[in-house]
């Protein structure tokens, strides 16, 4: 239920204070087809991935972290 997210400003806080921003990805792709894959086809692999998080109920900072989607281990 509660994964603790390390916010660069506020330190470790319960994940309920955060909004998940999806897998980290570049903001643009080479062409429109690649852009479709960029937006709609995230890897969704089990295991570690870079993710974007937003500290909604705190300092309202966006940051990236590495989380293992299977174990919820961060870092």
């Amino acid at each position, binding site marked *: *239920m*509660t*994964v*603790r997210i390390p916010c660069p400003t506020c330190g470790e806080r*319960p994940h309920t204070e955060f*909004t998940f*921003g999806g897998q980290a990805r570049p*903001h*643009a*792709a080479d*062409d*429109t*087809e690649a*852009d*479709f894959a*960029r*937006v*709609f086809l995230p890897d969704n692999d089990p295991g570690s991935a870079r993710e*974007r998080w*937003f500290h*909604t109920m705190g300092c*309202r*900072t*966006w*940051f990236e972290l590495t989380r293992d989607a299977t174990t*919820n281990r961060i870092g």
Partner: protein
Amino acid sequence: MTRGTLRFEGRGIPVEDGDTVASALFRAGVRTFSRSLKSRRRRGLYCGTGECPNCTVTVDDLPGVRSCVTPAEAGMRVERGRGWPSAEHDLLHVTDLMHPLMPVGFYMKTFVRPRFAWPAAERLIRRATGSGRLPEGREPSRTIVRHAHVDALVVGAGAAGLSAALESARASERVLLCDAFPIGSQVAPGPALDALHAHEAEVRAEPAIEVLDGHAALGVYDGPTVAVASAGELVQVHPRRIVLATGATEMHEAFPGNDLPGVWLGRAASRMAARHGVSIGARLVVVASTDEGLEHLGTLVAAGANVTAAVVPAAFVDGVPPSAEAIVDGELVSARGPGRVRSVIVRERGQERRLPCDALVLSTGLAPRDELVRMAPGEPIELVGDAALAGDVPRVAGGYICLCEDVSAHDAEQAWAEGFRSAEILKRYTTATMGPCRGAMCGRALAAFAAARSDQTDRGAPGRTTARPPSRPVALETLAASVHEVIEKRTSLHETHLAAGAELGWSGGWKRPFAYGDPKDEYAAVRERAGLMDVGTLGTFLIAGRDAPALVDRVFPTRVADLAPGRSRYVLALDEAGYVADDGVLCAFGDGSYLLTSTTGGAERMDARLREWTHRLGLHVHLLDRTSELGAILVAGPRARDLLEPLSDDALGTDALPHAAHGEVTVAGIPCTAIRTGFVGELGFELHHPRSRGPELWSALMRSGEAFGVRAFGLDALELLRLEKGHLYVGQDTMPDDTPAKLGLDRAVDTSKEWFVGKAALERLAAIPLGRRLAGLTFESGPPDAAELRGTPVFAGGEIVGRVTSAATSPTLGRSIGLAWIRTAEGELPADGLRAGDALATVAPTPFYDPDGERLRG
């Protein structure tokens, strides 16, 4: 000493000091406490420790109360839940006789065909099941939700738990100690209880320990997080480690007649005798094969109970009082009814003997309460005390495995024969362990049943099923606690609106006026004279810093680079898929900074979006959310300027402040940012002001407008005003995958820009024909108030081709209008032949009112 009476099904029952509801009822002669779920078998007091379902009754209209752990109070109203016409004489008991005809999976097997019969059968079954009626019209209680961060959470405040908590605190840890019941309430008076209370005093004196008695640990989740709840509080505990000192229950064994009233676990029997001074029967048979069982035997005899026989292992023979016959190494075969225990059959040296009795007391093993660790195997959980025991393996030789769900050993045999051959799938198929005891009674019996039949040699842990929360029964209102955590946002004019008789409602997290009496009158004031609206709920953001122009250029698809200082523009916000996510008005200042207003409901998301793209694009931007710091009042209508001019020395004419311009002005001595907007389609000034001065500004504007017949207007009037202009609400009139083209908002997209969020997606989508479009509709021969049409499907011939998203009847236009999304054929909207409900609908160009926008330029 008697402390008054409680009402039990219409009669008065005396309550003695220290009574539980169960002990008071039992003393007064109640033997059948409940009827079982399916077979309606009589059930009496059994575990006495708040685990099994047998003693559940309805107390003061609240069903499902475990009477054995609920202190009795004078004046309580107690009823038995199940049973028709009563629990004592339950005609539905015939289902017990039909049990052989109702095998496991009966519903699934029987009510499949014919399909049409199922709804009727379901109604009958639903009426016949359940454990009482929920009270109606009761005020929901407010459960407080809080978080607790500690080093150690100790669950269970018995001797082991108290020791663990003290030890942890003395190692400089912060400790939370919880127990489902008041400390010591499960222990009979005597030296053990005195020692426990002394121990408790030590714990309570320790400042590093927070004690939450009467709080049950419901479940262990990732993190770990443990949900701990009492009737009025839900605590989410975030410990570094968890110590389970949950103890053990006495083992539930399955043998014929094991669920008859009169079969007692040792703890219940000795507590009833020693603590409440209640005789549980005239002739008792005790089966004791644990040390604890021998103690219970002694307790019962000391309390004066007539124990006629004790079935004990050879080692315990010396402990059997002379008044009772010791049956050494005997085996309990069955308990016999009918209706309650009248005799038991015991096998002694191969011979079966019938022992007449009216109470059978069982202490044959311990079952550790380990469900919290079986819920979360990967978490840092340590078991101490009785909870750490391996536990005993119960016998399954007939009778009922699961009391809550009425699953007999025979049912389990049948399920096994059907191929459900492990404890996990037996559980799912038979629902054994899924009732209110959460497997505390039956879990081990089910595991033993499966283990005995499978090839597994290990009959311990592998056969146990995974435990799932909640580990103890919990009220839905406790689980729904956060639902009541409502943050009501109010503008500074809240009291002003209330004083004016406004009807307030929810809108985007705020309480806002919908109407001040007559929305039609409010509407007319705006169209003909002037109206005031509190728009302090709009999101307001200051965007500044070196890269502010770059940010707004890239976040919004709209052209903004040419936005001159002092000018404002309607902007869209797209997501990366090219879908319209929000809209707003962007105002440029001369120094490269901007003021952005966004929709009330979208303000939080707009803030997150601006910050997201600042971060992702690596820009240097200062973003200040001024939403709660600024109030805003919209002054709109043909006389808006006439109303404002007496209050201000600043130039408010079309030269100084034309449509789509903004400027700093002082109104009634209050500094305001005035934005010329036209959402309602009339001359309009949005006055953004320091929040604290809202009421002052409002009353000055009201006074000044008196001569013109100014009115305050709410969201109901606004709905019609904006609809006449064809302005859409993002969210109400849009769908999650609407592109600007589908909404007819291409003018707010500048495809010549090098890049903006969603641009690549729009380019890709441009090659695909539009599947639907948002279009204006006019309605004929529909309902007198077209607002009824909102949400109705749009038909072309017999086919649904769209849905009305907004509709209203316009007094000014003299007809009914609306917005709808409509499916296109080869990119074109159907010209006519549309219907919505009873109304004929025709596609019409928007705006419906003042298409050239002359009025708002005023």
